[in-house]
């Protein structure tokens, strides 16, 4: 990379008239793993060599805080915390994108032509090989509940899921689960009864599974889990057979973007055929566009798991999730249900993990 940079600068030095274009920065604040997004970013830089891309990989909380930063606003904001992104757009922090790519983008994956869901990531369960030696691995949410109830002692401390408190994504997923069925709270109670470990991100859950600390994980980001399973044969990914939530990463151009032209170019690239092709072929983020072919596309996922995919609706209803009183009520209930049948003394490990502040939390 440095050699390429030097060569680029030298080349632009020769092409003096176009030098002005070289100094065309673009700041992207993103809650998206740099390693996962690297092929996408490289492809963008190759397509737009005159734009100097600064990609800042942060937690969803930090990204959200950056949006409201008056002095130094970013150009493009990407986050998987859908309700928070939606709230920022509702507050008027986004600007419209009226390009052909934005016009052609499916209606269900955009709002106000300002914010766009550009990935299609299924929410999955993951289990370790050890689990299948003791019991039949779960295929549905009901299976999971049964398993947690019947093998409570075997699974004690071996189950993991998102912490709704520390992870915006986890909170959103649980909210969405709770919207579909009240039996979700039975599941929470059962998870609490087995002293389930609450993690801040999918990576921590996957690492725990590979290390053998956990046998079963619930509500993992399928995009990361599927890639992990390819290189870690002891981990299996199960897309729930009853319903599988789908999370979309949402991107918008900041209202006060210092470099709006570059920002539009970036978003056009993300939504365009080329960017989506890279997403479908070289990242596990899954392309939304139906006209893109590759191993990771929404279409292919539908073909594999059928019509059980339930994308979190990208509309104003998401705003309810960030309502403070609703969030407080939800967390109160979570705590109540989680501790209803819990062990008299809360697990020390879980408390330690809860208190840890990870840079990549909430992802």
């Amino acid at each position, binding site marked *: 990379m440095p050699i390429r940079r030097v060569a680029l600068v030298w080349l632009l030095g020769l092409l003096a008239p176009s030098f002005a274009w070289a100094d065309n920065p673009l700041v992207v604040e993103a809650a998206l793993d740099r390693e996962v997004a690297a092929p996408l970013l490289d492809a963008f830089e190759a397509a737009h060599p005159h734009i100097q891309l600064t990609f800042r990989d942060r937690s969803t909380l930090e990204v959200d805080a950056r949006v409201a930063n008056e002095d130094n606003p970013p150009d493009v904001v990407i986050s998987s915390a859908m309700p928070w992104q939606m709230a920022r757009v509702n507050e*008027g922090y986004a600007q419209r994108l009226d390009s052909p790519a934005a016009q052609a983008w499916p209606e269900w994956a955009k*709002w106000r032509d300002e914010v766009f869901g550009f990935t299609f990531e299924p929410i999955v369960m993951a289990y370790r090989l050890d689990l299948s030696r003791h019991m039949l691995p779960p295929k549905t949410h009901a299976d999971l509940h049964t398993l947690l109830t019947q093998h409570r002692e075997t699974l004690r401390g071996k189950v993991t899921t998102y912490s709704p408190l520390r992870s915006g994504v986890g909170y959103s997923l649980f909210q969405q689960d709770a919207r579909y069925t009240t039996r979700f709270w039975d599941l929470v109670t059962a998870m609490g009864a087995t002293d389930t470990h609450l993690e801040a991100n999918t990576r921590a859950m996957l690492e725990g599974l590979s290390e053998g600390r956990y046998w079963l994980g619930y509500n993992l980001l399928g995009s990361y889990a599927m890639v992990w399973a390819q290189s870690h044969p002891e981990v299996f990914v199960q897309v729930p057979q009853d319903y599988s939530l789908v999370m979309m990463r949402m991107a918008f151009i900041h209202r006060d973007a210092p470099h709006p032209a570059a920002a539009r170019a970036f978003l056009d690239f993300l939504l365009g055929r080329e960017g989506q092709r890279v997403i479908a072929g070289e990242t596990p983020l899954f392309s939304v566009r139906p006209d893109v072919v590759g191993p990771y596309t929404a279409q292919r996922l539908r073909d594999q798991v059928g019509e059980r995919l339930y994308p979190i609706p990208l*509309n*104003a*209803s*998401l*705003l309810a999730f960030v*309502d403070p009183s*609703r969030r407080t*009520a939800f967390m109160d209930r979570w705590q109540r249900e989680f501790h209803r049948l819990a062990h008299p003394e809360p697990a020390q490990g879980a408390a330690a993990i809860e208190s840890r502040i990870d840079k990549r939390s909430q992802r």
Partner: protein
Amino acid sequence: MIEVDGTLKSRLAFWLLATVSVLGVLLLVEAYFSSQRAAERAYDSQLEAAALTIAEAIRWEGGQPVVEIPSAALQILATRHQERVFYAVLDAKGQTVSGNLDIGIPPEWRRRVSSQPTWLNDTYHGTQWRLYGRELDSAGWETQDPVQIWVGHTMSGRDALTEMLFEQAVTRFVIMVLLAGILMLLAMRVALAPIRRLRQQLRRRDADDMRPLDARVPEEMREMAETLDSLFMRQRDGREALLRFTADASHQLKTPLAGLQTTSELALQSDSPDAWRQALTEVHGSAGRTSRLASQLLSLARLRHAVEASATARIDAMALLHETTFDWAQRDVSQAHDIGLASLPASPQYIQGEAWALRELLGNLIDNALRYTPPGSVITLGAVCHAQTLELYIEDDGPGVPPETLAHLHRPFERGGRQDTEGSGLGLAIVDSIVRRHEARMQVESAQKNGLKIRLFFPYLTQHEEK
């Protein structure tokens, strides 16, 4: 001289366009506001529904209102147009129980809402918002304070609906105008058909066809058709008068010529020089009369047909009257009569005219009076100043004429029923022609005792013409 001044079609089109423009502007303004009202009603009911949905979710816990914002309420607020949404639930003290944007609700708005639900327009960060507030009386076990629910959204949906409704109204209007225009053209063709028919009928007419029109015309064209008819009638009358004049003139000339022939034939058969002398004297007198007749006919024809006026001048009518009267009074022919002037206005009275013609006119009048009155009659000329006109008159105390012939006296060869005079019957006809040339008016009436009075009214020379 026919001057073409645009077409009827363009005139009608102009008026149609002007009317439609004025009406159209009014209609479109009305359409815009009614579109806006319709859009407002449609979307205001959504705000109401969202507020009601939120109201359902409010309950009391430990003396505090608690609300779990329903997702449905937010979706109702956002509408199909994906508006940005605002909601706030305020307790009795105005503290926010729950809410998403920091749109401040001023106390006076809260007071207004406490009496009745209210809709408001507000600007928040440069964007127009429509807000709706209502108060909810909900009772808990500990407290019974009212709770206010405020909801709002941006207005792109309203604007889009207004625009759509307005566009529909404009489209309807434009189609209506186009249809009206086409109908107008058709109507014009139908309405102008009688004019076309009349034109064709006139074009087909023979040059000497003077019969009245035989055409079916609408009420609006009746006047024009009647005018045409009367024009034809006058032409016919003029033609007939001309023919009659020619016939009369031939007849008048034929009689003395026949007399001449007879006299000369008799003289040729005789051998007596006395008879010859006698005949020659007769021939001489008759030729003189005939020549006078011919010269009068000629002057009458000249007066009637000389269209272009010869040089006119400013003439003092009083001086002329004086001069002519005295001239005639001294002639031999008038020695048997008493010709005199009535008292005249002291100052000169000016009229515009041709001196020779006016002299001829007075001369003819005096000559006429001399010829048609018995010797010893009194002939008086005079002048009277009226407001608009100067009147010259001549009056005699002769036998007069029967009242029924008064109106025809100015016709050529009309002798007032008298065959006993040497007059040609052309005198008053000449007078009439001269009067017409001077745009004056002649009035023939019976004099106070008996006899005849002829009054001529001349227009004064106006200030403008004096220059």
